[in-house]
């Protein structure tokens, strides 16, 4: 079994999940708890990557962070290397693909928390920030964790966006999903079998955990 692509997949997926937690939970909270003009538009923009063809999504990411883009040039200036066709590019691809899952799960979990608890917290002298961290977030944590678990699984299995943004460079950007594709193309199914088994087991485990967490969202 090839371990390097699997190890890279887990490294990319874990890094991406950490980044998604930092971006996705606040975005989900913003959509759940604030009323502002353009809320529906923001929701559509954040959700669309779920249904776009990966190649289209990859194209947009390339346009946004490619070497001719502002971000790409700034990155090159700062770190003396491009973003695309690197491990960083693979992480960004995974983040973009999985972010909608976490935003939606966080939003739904926070909307599920009885607003009476937030009202009680405010009358007890807590501002909105303390109310969020001490009351709403702990009460929504199971739903959010379920979203993060699904996000991790999605990041682990990303193919299309990673291929577009990071390429398929063995030892550098070749994740397990890409290595499986290469092995099948080369008629070496034996090489792919181990990776297929590990990814399948991880996906089954992730869905099981997400379901468990989701079902017990009110189980205090």
């Amino acid at each position, binding site marked *: 079994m090839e371990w390097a692509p699997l190890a890279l997949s887990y490294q990319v997926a874990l890094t991406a999940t950490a980044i998604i937690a930092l971006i996705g939970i606040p975005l989900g909270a913003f959509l759940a708890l604030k009323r502002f003009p353009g809320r529906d538009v923001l929701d559509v923009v954040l959700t669309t990557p779920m249904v776009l063809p990966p190649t289209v999504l990859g194209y947009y990411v390339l346009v946004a962070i490619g070497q001719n883009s502002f971000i790409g040039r700034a990155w090159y200036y700062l770190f003396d290397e491009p973003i695309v066709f690197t491990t960083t590019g693979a992480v960004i691809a995974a983040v973009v693909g999985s972010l909608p899952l976490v935003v939606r799960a966080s939003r739904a979990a926070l909307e599920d928390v*009885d607003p*009476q*608890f937030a*009202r*009680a*917290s*405010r*009358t*007890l*002298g*807590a*501002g909105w920030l303390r109310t969020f961290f*001490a*009351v709403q977030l*702990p*009460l929504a944590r199971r739903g959010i964790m379920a979203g993060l678990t699904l996000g991790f699984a999605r990041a682990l299995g990303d193919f299309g966006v990673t291929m577009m943004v990071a390429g398929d460079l063995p030892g550098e950007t070749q994740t397990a999903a890409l290595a499986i594709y290469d092995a099948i193309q080369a008629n070496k199914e034996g090489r792919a079998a181990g990776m297929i088994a590990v990814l399948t087991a991880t996906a089954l485990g992730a869905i099981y955990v997400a379901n468990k967490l989701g079902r017990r969202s009110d189980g*205090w």
Partner: protein
Amino acid sequence: MAGDLEVRLCASVGGFGVDVEFRARPGVTVLFGPSGSGKSTTLSAIAGLIRPDAGRIAIGEQVWFDSAARVDLPVERRRVAVVFQSLALFPHMSALDNVVYGIDRKLPRAERRERAAAMLVRMRVGHLGERQPRSLSGGEAQRVALARAFAMAPAVVLLDEAFSALDRELRRELLADVRRYIEDARLPAIQVTHHRMEARAMADRVVMMRAGRVVGVGAPDEMLHDAVPEIGSFADIDKTPIPRLVKR
């Protein structure tokens, strides 16, 4: 002692309008009226949970809301203890932590826990501090919710149908404890109810409401005599004779 609570407000929520004016002195003022008369909306506006369209809400010298002067103190700075009908005990915290939550965070943690524990004892649930809300009976949860409200050293206490889920005997015991606390603290408390027995047991003064307006203010004996049926139990309140109205 906090002083009188002055309430003059117009507010509309979901197409329903409230236009009320009354004064709550230290002691218990009962807002009495049928469902949909605007009692809970009035309470929410006093607490700062909804913003009135116009009016003035002040406690003693402190103005909480004044539309003319553009004052609107945020809810967390009003020091208003609200006991909700649902109690809203935080399910992920122990009873003690629920009570600690509202106590001034400038105080050392040990002192906050001590105060919370003392308030639980005062509300006769001192032995339940480590229990989670879901493991408490209705009466126990009610006492923890009251302890949480009182422990924050409030300027005003608001009780929104807070005892409606309890049986008669339990309610009688609890009302006596709540009354005692409010008398000792000399706080204005506003209680929303449509139970005449509860209103009689608690009220120093009754503000009767119908269709979003105050239709009478007076002593419990005048406002809650037997000619007025139990408001929660009849549908057509508008056909019922109103007791002698007292000028505010």
